[in-house]
């Protein structure tokens, strides 16, 4: 049972633009292990939605199966959620998103759920540029089935039992960049300052926004030799700070020229990126790929907003969907009626 017990919050909580307190974004009490990275992600999602003043019921939560996929029960108790089947959440999210383009879709998955059984659907989800935020709580193992290596486990990483993973780990962020995702970020469950603005930016982004979050499994992959332990991640962290300024808020902070890049999203929101090197542009896939490969070679965990296409057009646009949500259409929108059918019959004689 986790120590993160959202229900016990300070009584006098500040309200957001909608008059909600952060407690209004709580879910039920987490049943994950004490210290599980996933709980920090839940907290970050809760805070991000609160800060961005998103009406909780306008968010739909989708997940597959795993400890990570249980997370949606632990935040946004006023949102509908769907704990679907293992590795196939991308398709469920695709269907949900076209059925009602007006809601905000938040997918939460694990590295097993996405990189192992879910790989096929994940790649095709990216390809369709479904308008959603997709967070992978990446611990390099199958927590819920007691810690086997997942497909993102790094080559040579040691498991709790002392065995070493003999396979190359799949880097979901690079894959997303290569496959054309319009928003790709990586973060660390322990880096609230970076994770929250990234989630807010992702939810403001139009199109598919992917965040790969290193989220240590304290029970099965937090051992010495595990490359995704808290210690190892902190040690190798190469974090590029991010901050998010929603539309209609003026920018407060200023940063030294060069290293900072400012990107404006389709809705007018602004993201400030503070990059490792000046010659890396967050809107270049090549730069992102090269930077990620380099970090990977040097055993670094490069976090931040890695790639962004602010002009991206989502699946709803590609499908030329009407602006009225499909799930709200009635007989008049949908049923051609008897006269048309008569003429169709005629054509079949």
């Amino acid at each position: 049972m986790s120590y993160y017990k959202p229900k016990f919050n300070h009584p006098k909580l500040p309200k957001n633009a909608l008059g909600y307190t952060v407690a209004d974004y709580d879910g039920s009490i987490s049943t994950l292990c004490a210290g599980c990275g996933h709980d920090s992600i839940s907290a970050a999602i809760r805070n991000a939605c609160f800060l961005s003043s998103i009406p909780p019921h306008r968010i739909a939560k989708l997940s597959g199966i795993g400890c990570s996929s249980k997370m949606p029960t632990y935040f946004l108790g006023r949102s509908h959620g769907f704990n679907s089947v293992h590795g196939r959440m991308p398709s469920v999210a695709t269907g949900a998103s076209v059925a009602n383009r007006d809601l905000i879709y938040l997918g939460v998955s694990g590295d097993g759920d996405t990189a192992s059984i879910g790989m096929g659907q994940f790649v095709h989800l990216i390809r369709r540029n479904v308008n959603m935020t997709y967070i992978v709580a990446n611990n390099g193992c199958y927590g819920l089935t007691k810690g086997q290596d997942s497909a993102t486990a790094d080559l040579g990483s040691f498991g709790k039992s002392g065995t070493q993973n003999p396979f190359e780990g799949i880097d979901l962020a690079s894959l997303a960049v290569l496959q054309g995702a319009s928003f790709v970020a990586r973060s660390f469950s322990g880096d609230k300052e970076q994770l929250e603005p990234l989630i807010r930016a992702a939810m403001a982004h139009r199109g598919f926004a992917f965040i790969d979050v290193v989220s240590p499994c304290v029970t099965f992959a937090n051992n010495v030799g595990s490359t995704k332990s808290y210690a190892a991640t902190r040690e190798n962290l190469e974090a590029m700070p991010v901050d998010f300024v929603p539309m209609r808020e003026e920018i407060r902070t200023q940063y030294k020229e060069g290293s900072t890049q400012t990107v404006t999203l389709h809705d007018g929101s602004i993201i400030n990126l503070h990059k490792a090197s000046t010659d890396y542009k967050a809107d270049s896939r090549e730069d992102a790929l090269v930077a990620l490969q380099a970090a990977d070679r040097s055993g670094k965990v490069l976090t931040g907003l890695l790639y962004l296409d602010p002009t991206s057009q989502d699946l709803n646009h590609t499908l030329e969907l009407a602006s009225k949500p499909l799930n709200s259409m009635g007989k008049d929108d949908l049923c051609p009626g008897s006269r048309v059918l008569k003429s169709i019959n005629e054509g079949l004689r």
Partner: protein
Amino acid sequence: MKQLEGVNDFVVKFANVNGTGSASANHLFAKAIFRMGVPVSPRNIFPSNIQGLPTWYEVRVSAKGYLGRRGGVDLMLCVNPQTMEDDIASVGPGGYFVYDSTRPLAPHLKRDDISCFGIPLTEMCMREFKVARLQQLLKNVVYVGALAALLDVDFSILKDLLSDQFKGKEKLISPNVHALEMGYQFAKENFPCPLPIRLDPSVIDAPHIRESQHILMNGNTAAALGAIYGGATVAAWYPITPSTSVVDAFSKYAERLRIDAGTGKRNFAILQAEDELAAMGIVVGASWNGARAFTATSGPGLSLMSEFLGLAYFAEVPVVLIDVQRSGPSTGMPTRSQQSDILAAAYASHGDTKHVLLFPATPRECFDMTVQAFDLAEQLQTPVIMMSDLDLGMNDWMSPPLEWDDDYEMNRGKVLDKDALDEAETWGRYLDVDGDGICYRTLPGTHPDKGAFFTRGSSKNGMAVYSEKGDDYVENVDRLLRKFETAKSYVPVPKVHDPIPVKKPKTKKKLGALFFGTSASPSYEAVEILAEEGYPIDVMRIRAFPFHESLDAFIHEHDTVFVIEQNRDGQMRQLIMNECHIAPDKLTSVLNYSGTPITARTIARQIRRALNATSADVVKLHPETA
């Protein structure tokens, strides 16, 4: 030699090579007969290949209006040397054989119990036409012309059809008409036209067909129209024969009928998924979110969808799935027809699951049942699977015209909107307040602080709160059984027909026959044949699972009931055994699983044997494959 005779009553079969344009010429022939007002049923028997393999096209003409296959061949038109040996052999004694005589008929193939007519098709086309492709294509039109002369097909209708067909490409009309005439002339000059088997629209003893103004269409197109009229907004699919044309047709009609007049935007979404798991996932997600969504697939896809179907059953998400059946397995015979997914569909997925099935028998029913499938899925909050097959889905059938009642309102089932939620004081997603096993759904985004819940499989209680308590589990799945009981009164009831009067019956036994889908037409025909022979058989056509109680009644009222179906294991019989309480010896299987649709003659033959057989137990005869 006694030649076969018959006005408006014969079977013509074409033997071609696929990819040579034969199908459209053969269809031209069938359509002309249809336009003449003579009952006709064409069937394309094609290979799993795009070009170069043998393919057949069977056209049955039936004055009485039988639309199923009869069995046997009266006139064979063969332009495929690869298969000529089998083809000529399959002609019934007294029948006719028309072939391309550019190459003379091999002596060992000759038969003196049939009449052979050679037409130098290749030679004629080489002479008349310059373009190679035309030389190949028009060969087919030439033999249609010849058949027009041999069988008295109305020539003007053929010409009309050609001009319809080539609207936009007018310059193609004249060569085609010319080819028609070449064939017609050749036959008139060289053969005794018309043959003893021929057409005559003036003598039709199936007036009901002409009166009801039948149309000619395939089941997949009808199902697609059903989805349009039923208000489907999301179609997710992965291409697979023989279901592909369902979504093709949906797309074609949607682009015409579902474009928002003002904005030109689409009131529908079609998603070609990466595979069937994804297609079903998309349907589940869209339905969960309140849209009417469907997918169409065939056996292999059904297998891949089974995990999701189980989830939808337990999570109570509406799903509409159109299964156009073919013979199993993957790398099986994808272009052959069977009814062999019955058990796989009824019990799809691990754990205790049962799914609602619909069994359409005509394009008209494909249309009606697809519309109904969306209502049922939302009323019952569960997957509804329409079990079509290749024969019904891909072949053109004469069908009463599609009808639509403009007063129809979609039945969205028990869904609480914002106001309803405001009123409701205690609401639980899985509380059976009405006692019919059906609970009240809510959709995402409906209400700021009421009605939100977390959708899961089975570890939950009535309030949709996570629970692993045995009592909660049992209470929930027992309710699902209750819901399945309720379904019995929602699904289409079986069709019964007045028994055919039989003068002096040869048996005291009370005989009955059960069938469904494409087994229906040939079964009706077989029953009439047997009535003629003195065997009165009552019939019931199954149209849905779970079964209506009248099915139990029907079986109990009869001593022997034949279950006629197109699979090896008598799957419908098994389903009946499972769900009703029947002494097994009452149910006798009549089966065909060769991949080509069952014929009236096979059915009659199997039933005859069964009746003479001392024990009325499962008879498995080697089914005829022609």
